[in-house]
């Protein structure tokens, strides 16, 4: 590292901070990079032009407008910011409202601890967007929050604007264990699915009441009183109306099929199965229904329903046409999603693009933000990572992480390596 006078560092920190605190009016060109676009191959000696937080140009010949800051990547790899489609960081101990198996009215944003250092540690691993989900204690858990890892900024600046609302469902051992251990329903898989079905039926009743009411109002009936609003049923009605992306924690093949059948029975769509360690057994059906999976690369054996997990799951499903993401579900794995994706190149032979897609564009699709992030394409958010080393390897580490064109992590900086954050401020 070149020695730079401290005043220059401080000045640039101040400038970067000032820019970021305003409205993303940045203009930078990252040049001399091996650009892994995800959607249109890898460009050696490529450049990316960023304007106002968005990618404005990508290619070998990108002109540098006067006034743009030039960042020389020094021949290093540049990827989109990584995306974690299953995370529980920054929620303190509030991941599970494990007091009832049906809690769709829980909003994870109400527990979002935007100062949690985990957001920083994961950022330092190259992740720029995460889906923070409710836990898996309940058959129908709470509604997720999508964040950008702008550590050091205020809470609202860290929320992904306009991201669709996801809701977490779960099945199998966790709900069974949590309620079964208290001698409550559900303690079996029959109980699990009955509880879920019952909830959806009551949501149908609730919707009918409202439909009747609205129809009467429309007819001009002035004496009619509105039904009582119920937050829980409101949320379930949103599931049935297709307003929420349904993300289901589910391991066993038979349960994947049951969840699909139930969705068909009640007429809602599933976005993705999470963990889905036995998805390789029913990959055709998942592909036919357009359901993605967010899975581990090789984690297994931690419980009975993870006993048939195999590290070829991701690639076997992908080859059958399933959209596959590798996710963390862990404060630890979230810091090295790139290594986890690299494993798919070994287990089943994913190509470089396919492997990278599992932690960028496919993860973005699962969250419903693939039109905004997940690849290096013109018009997308300038969430970018310059890597020391080849990203899909054991020995890669982010050198700089940009979110919407601003540097949020720079490994070469002292302290925590964050331009926008210093301890005690």
């Amino acid at each position, binding site marked *: 590292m070149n020695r730079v006078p401290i005043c220059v560092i401080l000045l640039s920190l101040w400038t970067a901070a000032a820019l970021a605190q305003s409205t993303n009016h940045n203009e930078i060109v990252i040049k001399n990079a091996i650009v892994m676009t995800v959607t249109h191959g890898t460009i050696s000696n490529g450049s990316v032009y960023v304007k106002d937080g968005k990618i404005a140009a990508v290619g070998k010949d990108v002109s540098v407008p006067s006034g743009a800051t030039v960042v020389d990547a020094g021949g290093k790899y540049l990827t989109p910011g990584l995306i974690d489609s299953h995370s529980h960081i920054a929620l303190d101990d509030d991941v599970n409202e494990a007091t009832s198996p049906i809690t769709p009215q829980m909003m994870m944003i109400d527990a979002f601890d935007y100062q949690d*250092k*985990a957001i*920083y*540690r994961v950022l*330092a*691993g190259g992740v720029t967007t995460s889906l923070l989900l409710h836990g898996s204690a309940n058959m129908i858990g709470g509604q997720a929050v999508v964040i950008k890892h702008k550590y050091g900024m205020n809470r609202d600046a860290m929320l992904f604007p306009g991201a669709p609302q996801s809701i977490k469902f779960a099945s199998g*051992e966790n709900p069974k264990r949590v309620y079964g251990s208290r001698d409550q329903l559900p303690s079996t898989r029959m109980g699990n699915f009955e509880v879920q079905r019952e909830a959806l039926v009551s949501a149908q009743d609730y919707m009918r009441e409202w439909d009747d009411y609205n129809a009467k109002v429309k007819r001009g009936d002035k004496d009619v009183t509105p039904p009582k609003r119920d937050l829980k049923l409101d949320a379930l009605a949103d599931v049935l109306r297709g307003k929420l992306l349904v993300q289901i924690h589910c391991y066993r093949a038979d349960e994947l099929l049951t969840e699909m059948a139930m969705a068909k029975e009640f007429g809602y769509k599933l976005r993705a199965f999470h963990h889905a360690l036995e998805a*390789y*057994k029913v*990959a*055709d059906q998942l592909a036919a229904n357009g359901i993605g999976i967010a899975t581990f690369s*090789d*984690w*297994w*054996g*931690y*419980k*009975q329903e*993870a*006993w*048939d*997990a*195999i*590290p*070829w799951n991701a690639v*076997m499903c992908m080859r059958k046409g399933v959209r596959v993401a590798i996710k963390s579900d862990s*404060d*630890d794995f979230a*810091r*090295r999603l790139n*290594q986890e994706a*690299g*494993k798919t*190149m*070994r287990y089943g032979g994913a190509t470089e693009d396919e492997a990278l897609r599992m932690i960028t564009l496919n993860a973005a699709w699962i969250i419903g933000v693939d039109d905004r992030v997940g690849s290096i394409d013109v018009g997308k958010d300038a969430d970018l990572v310059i890597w*020391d*080393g080849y990203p*899909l*390897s*054991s*020995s*890669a*580490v982010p050198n700089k992480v940009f979110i919407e064109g601003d540097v949020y992590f720079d490994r070469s900086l002292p*302290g*925590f*390596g964050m331009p926008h954050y210093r*301890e005690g401020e």
Partner: protein
Amino acid sequence: MKNVIGRWFSIVGLLCLAFVSTAAQQKPIVLRGGKLLTVSHGVIEHGVLVMENGKITAVGAEGSTAIPKNARVVDLKGMTVYPGLIDSETNLGLTEISAEDMTNDLVELSEEIMPHMHVYDAFHAESELIPVTRLNGITNAIVAPESKDTLPGQDSFVQLSGKSANEMLMIRDIAMPLNFTGDQRRNQSREKRKYPSTRMGMAAQLRQAFLDAQDYQQHWADYEKKKNEAAAKTDDKDKKLPTQPKRDLKLEALLPYLAGQKPIILAAEEPSDLESAVNLAREFNLKFVLNHVSHSQPVLDYIAQLKVPVIVGPIYETPKPYERFDAVYSLPGELNKRGVKIAFASFDAHNARNLPYQAGFATAFGLPYDDALKAITLNAAEIWGVADKLGSLDVGKTANVVVATGDPLDVKTDVKQVFIGGQEIPMTSRQTRLRDQYSGQ
């Protein structure tokens, strides 16, 4: 009677020999043309490695290394060949499915001082986890009880192949963990709180255990002395034998460690715990190897001057909120720079196969590549006293050899063949069988 026993022993001996000879490799195997990472003497780009009777009998460059006439020659152009990897702490053979209690024999929680627990009594040779692990080139491992007790029992050093537990358990009771991380306190809840619920309690209890063992040793020494004195007496009247002390398995188990014959594996994470644990070990003149030291960045020089090896990590341990993101990642590099002999461990069972990636990751944080590879091979062999047999590609060592598509420390590398004791290990596991079963779908 004596004769019968003698004959019986010789039959057993013959049976053992017959067993070993069928198990051992028959024909010499030659691995030719691969890139040999010898660990002990550099890289041979186009090398030849000969395995005979379970041992490595030649290592050298292609063209200048003799190939035995009757050998089976395997062409390995483009492949990388390296010694079997050694995981310096696992729970292999003690667990099958983490959440299913009946498949776990990880640690005895009824008491904290349990040196008389021997993992070899529980080691499950047929565990499905073992083929999964060795398929990634890990051929040897320390099996340790879980770290929830201060003295949870004694480790064994195993080879991850063999027809039975007896064949796999190479060294029983090789070392004893002493855990001092705070997790051994019995203070999980107010209702369940019991002694020792603080670090003071942990230390006092440990100290008492070692004192009791010293006392026990003294009783036996006194007894032996009196017995010998009595035997030496000429007058039958004076030959009154002293009463033999009662055997105590727990205290007996501590004696080899008090005598410095075997190492204590001293686990601590934070500087204060580390210093307390080291002081305690010194108080009783224990020989020790350090374990974890995950959050001890502020006392690296102190660690270095202890001049003992460190089982480092796991480097994926989450840093404390006040630590930089790479405070734990960079630990192996920082210790290595100060001349500390390090070895990596998975501290796991299901994920033990990922051991080499920890070493690979540490290279991104200042650990030179060669030292990273050493930390999962030769350094580990030296720490566990088996460097005459394992840890490098050298003539005379056990033929634990791995053939892979490239860099052993990288996640993309596929392991193609593992040899243990010169034997070709079937490259199958429960997981490959499931893959194959559902691949035709």
